[in-house]
């Protein structure tokens, strides 16, 4: 008899429900991410929800499976890229002749469009950094459990 390596693999209901739910959790995270200007939410909340979807996957299907879906190097990179994107927008506004993080200069013709673009990019950076950080922490904790 084959012994399953992870605790919850044999729970059929959990697996089926998780498979149904995870796409909607990720979709909801994207909605919160890109609809943050108009409704509640933004990069931070979206990052946490996005990471929570993967954490659920990891809890049900095991850490090794999760690491095949999202390799650790991707998680680690998204933490750094998120912060660099945020700071990079600031540097870009300086290079375009504005103050640091003054998004209005991002669009040469319409200051409001520049503000929207800046907010979108910065929120995306926050989302990447937060989702990555949450998964890094989860990987670190869950990885200790298995040894």
């Amino acid at each position, binding site marked *: 008899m084959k012994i399953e390596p992870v605790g919850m693999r044999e729970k059929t209901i959990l697996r089926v429900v998780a498979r149904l739910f995870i796409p909607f959790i990720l979709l909801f995270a994207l909605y919160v991410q890109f609809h943050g200007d108009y409704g509640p939410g*933004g990069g931070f909340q979206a990052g946490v929800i996005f990471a929570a979807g993967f954490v659920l996957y990891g809890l049900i299907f095991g850490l090794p499976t999760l690491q095949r879906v999202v390799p650790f*190097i991707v998680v680690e990179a998204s933490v750094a890229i998120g912060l660099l994107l945020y700071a990079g927008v600031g540097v870009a506004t300086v290079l375009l002749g504005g103050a640091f*993080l003054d998004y209005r200069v991002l669009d040469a013709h319409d200051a*409001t469009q520049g503000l929207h673009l800046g907010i979108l990019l910065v929120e995306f950076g926050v989302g990447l950094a937060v989702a990555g950080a949450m998964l890094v922490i989860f990987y670190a904790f869950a*990885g200790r459990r298995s040894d």
Partner: protein
Amino acid sequence: MAPIELLLFAFLIAVALLVARLRDLLAAALLLGIFSLLCAGLFVLNDAVDVAFTEAAVGAGVSTILLLGTLSLTRREEKSQPTRWAPLVVVFVTGGALALGILDMPAYGDPTAPIHQHLAPDYIAGTAAEFGIPNVVTAILTSYRGFDTLGETAVIVTAAIGILALLASGRRWKGGAP
């Protein structure tokens, strides 16, 4: 104060006392998740939906999972310790001082409190006039307080680096299993 708020506050206090009394750490971790959810409910009643969102996602969701992950590395029961009276006295004196301090605060949810009169009207007017977006919180976080949010993102990144340095020492992380 609305009856629903009184009810949530009563639950909040009951859950907090229960968490402090419990020896079963698994139950305490799950109750802390409920505590966060009650807080999120209170934030919603104060129209602070963004904060409620964060509290529900982080406090009730991710941190509960992290607490459970930590519990799987340690024991489920708290070791029983003899009651020490000096810390109890310190806690009560500090709590009493804080309670005295909040007597001078504006009433709960008072819209005319000083904190709502200083910069908030400018932010609310400016968001509609300059940004053309309805969510004032997004405008404040990313633009008016853009430096703060950059710093907060750096704090989160630092936390991730710190966790890696603490829990992943002496192992190869690159591409492989931790």
